[in-house]
């Protein structure tokens, strides 16, 4: 076995890169949930501690982070439905590419709407 990894990256197509995206967004969501469980459980420590920690999230950097998190969740959710369709719908494998474009189109629509609403509220300063 060569000690160095093989020379080039495998040049997969839509299917492979959507899988890579699904994996990455999955890990991102996992780490968010980890932190989310921790900060929410602070309520049981004291409501004041909870309010203080949640209040610390109210800054522009976290607003951008939240946009990224929603972007990851929306992709993971829509692509998850696509994967279910590939496995359970008879024609799923045949139309996987078209379904991926649909996923990405829906993702763009949702993200444009969400970003306008969220960032204007978070960064607008009212």
């Amino acid at each position, binding site marked *: *076995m*060569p*000690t*160095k990894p*093989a*020379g*080039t*990256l*495998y*040049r*997969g*197509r*839509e*299917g*492979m890169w*959507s*899988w890579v995206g699904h994996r990455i967004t999955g890990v991102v969501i996992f780490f968010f949930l980890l932190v989310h469980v921790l900060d929410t459980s602070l309520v049981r420590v004291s409501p004041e501690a909870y309010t203080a920690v949640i209040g610390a999230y109210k800054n522009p950097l976290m607003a951008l982070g939240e946009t990224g998190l929603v972007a990851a969740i929306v992709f993971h959710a829509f692509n998850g439905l696509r*994967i279910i369709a*590939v*496995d*359970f719908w008879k024609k*799923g*494998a*045949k139309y*996987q590419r078209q379904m991926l474009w649909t996923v990405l189109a829906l993702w763009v629509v949702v993200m444009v709407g969400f970003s306008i609403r969220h960032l204007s509220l978070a960064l607008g300063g009212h």
Partner: protein
Amino acid sequence: MSAELAEPASKIELPAHIGGGGEIPTFDVHLRVRRYNPEVSEDATWDDFHVTMYGTDRVLDALHKVKWEIDGSVSFRRSCAHGVCGSDAMRINGRNRLACKTLLKDLDTSKPITVEPIKGLPVEKDLIVDMEPFFQSFREVMPFLINKGHEPTKERLQSAEDRERFDDTTKCILCAACTSSCPVFWTDGQYFGPAAIVNAHRFIFDSRDDAGDMRLEILNDKEGVWRCRTTFNCSEACPRGIQVTQAIAEVKQAILSRKI
């Protein structure tokens, strides 16, 4: 007396612009081959070769030219050289292809063409990999007809519709292009891999076969069909155009519904 054997004049007058056999366009190809020889070094390296090839040539012809005229130590497998035997699956420009079915003119010859061994199987030398783990999985799905009834005196009859059910998966030539394109197989060598599932599919959905349940049980394993992450690399890599991911999905559904 001198015997002058002049070529007889052609009976058909061909205008010059049509051209003859000698006028197939040639072009220079920069081949970048992944080399590995455990007797020399544990590290794999890249070797560059420049060859002049014809527009009708395939990657395999370029490799032949390199081996026969430049460096005889370049090692690769090939047998029929016409896309039937499945010996020369390799990674060409980052994708699994048969070298004998990939025309050079279809590749971007302005850049080096990279040729590497297929991934996920132990490399033995240069482009040759150890296929044993691949064939081990293939054997485990029992890729042969199992019929519990009496031996018929004539052939086993089957309707055209029943034959059509598994037609796609009969085309497999066991080149391993699909299995070695699978990201799951790269990291988990225990996974049966697309090729074994394709060959199981070929018998599971054969109306003459009685061991479909047994094969479904084998593939209902932790390392069976459920490892498939539907990346579609296998369907894209198959030189026979088998819809591999579709076949795997059909096996998944058959396991869940226990209906063949």
